[in-house]
């Protein structure tokens, strides 16, 4: 009898919920806009930090600069590349904040290559698309992936091999991070994001794979100003939105 009463109470409270019409008027989604210092403050020594971008497009230069000021040490960075000497994550390398780098390519940064060759920086190379999938796997809550990419190459070293349909496959582990630093073209206060052109690259994947996701945005728009079907990263993945002022030179065209 008692059990029956409990169920009746739940059913009663459900009836009091707002109707569809009233839903549209309820309190808006939470505002995640934050100052840059407060956002970066949460990155401790020893953190694993994912940084979006492929070359300049998508690299969050302002968040990186703030991380240099914050001076967190012994970081593990996960990024497609190491930017170029004197740009982006190279500032973290020059400041001695990075212990380990997980990348697909560092060819445009001779400084990073020198640090690696002299044993001052541990570098783990990963095939570019597998780097993307390892990040995506973490974001999707998977415990790894099996692939034949890299079989019979140096990148297979130390990785368990499984046979799938008669084919040798490597077990690639998911890449999770404490923090992801992301650059968006446009964000609303809830953290719905869009990226410009080839600036998308690793950003939406990393935005799913870190415990705390910090986004800098060129433009902050109101809730509802980005059409729902045009959103590249949905707001629930994002923790902090940092609106940028005028863009610094780092974001500009590089004349080589």
């Amino acid at each position: 009898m008692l059990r029956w009463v409990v169920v009746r109470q739940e059913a009663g409270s459900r009836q009091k919920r707002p109707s569809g019409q009233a839903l549209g008027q309820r309190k808006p989604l939470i505002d995640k806009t934050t100052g840059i210092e407060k956002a970066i403050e949460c990155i401790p020594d020893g953190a694993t930090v994912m940084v979006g971008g492929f070359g300049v497009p998508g690299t969050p230069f302002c968040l990186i600069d703030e991380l240099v000021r914050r001076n967190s040490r012994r970081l593990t960075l996960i990024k497609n590349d190491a930017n170029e000497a004197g740009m982006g994550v190279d500032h973290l390398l020059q400041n001695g904040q990075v212990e380990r780098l997980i990348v697909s390519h560092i060819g445009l940064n001779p400084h990073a290559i020198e640090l690696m060759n002299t044993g001052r920086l541990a570098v783990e190379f990963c095939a570019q698309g597998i780097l993307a999938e390892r990040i995506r796997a973490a974001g999707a809550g998977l415990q790894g992936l099996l692939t034949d990419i890299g079989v019979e190459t140096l990148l297979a070293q130390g990785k368990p091999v499984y046979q799938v349909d008669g084919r040798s496959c490597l077990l690639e582990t998911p890449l999770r991070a404490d923090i992801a630093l992301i650059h968006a073209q446009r964000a609303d206060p809830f953290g719905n994001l869009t990226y410009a052109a080839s600036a998308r690259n690793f950003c939406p994947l990393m935005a799913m794979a870190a415990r705390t996701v910090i986004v800098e945005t060129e433009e902050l728009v109101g809730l509802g100003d980005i059409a729902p079907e045009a959103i590249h990263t949905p707001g629930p993945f994002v923790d902090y939105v940092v609106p940028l002022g005028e863009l610094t030179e780092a974001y500009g065209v590089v004349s080589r």
Partner: protein
Amino acid sequence: MTVNLGIGLPTLLVDYLEEGFPVCLHSENGIAGQGPAVPFERADRNLIDAGGAYVSVLPGTSFFDSATSFALVRGGRLDLTILGALEVAGNGDLANWTIPGRFTPGVGGGMELAQKARRVVVLCSHTDKRGQPKLVRQCSLPLTAPACVDRIYTDMAVIDIEPEGMVLREIAEEYGIDEVVAATGAPLLISEDEIGRF
């Protein structure tokens, strides 16, 4: 067809495409239907190819993330890739990403392109800077992918990789067959049919 041009020499091919030639260029950083390179005065700061050159859009260009970009490659939607090489072996093994201790920029997207494009073409000089053959019996450098190359274009010759080894298809006007054979570190099979000239 959908084509990916590797960084370096292959990228230069874009300038030789006839206008209106029906090809969809793919760039690993998330572009399909990529337009030609543009000088930096006219560049869009957010639009580069995988080699870092500023490029343009065409009607029908699309942008996507890196996972989608490599799904296109690994999933079998890339018809052709043209890559540079440090060494190619007679069985089609390709080495183009590292010279241990001297040159290790990282593999980038090279392994997936070499292993999964439906056709893999190498575009490289016939010999290296020291005059040593790049086409060899067996690669001495770490592999990008085993047995992946279908055809090689060099400044001296066009060579196909067949199950029986390297087959000479064409040679450049200024060279004789003996010179090509001498500059090649792997056995060259020479067809009894006429060898083309270019």
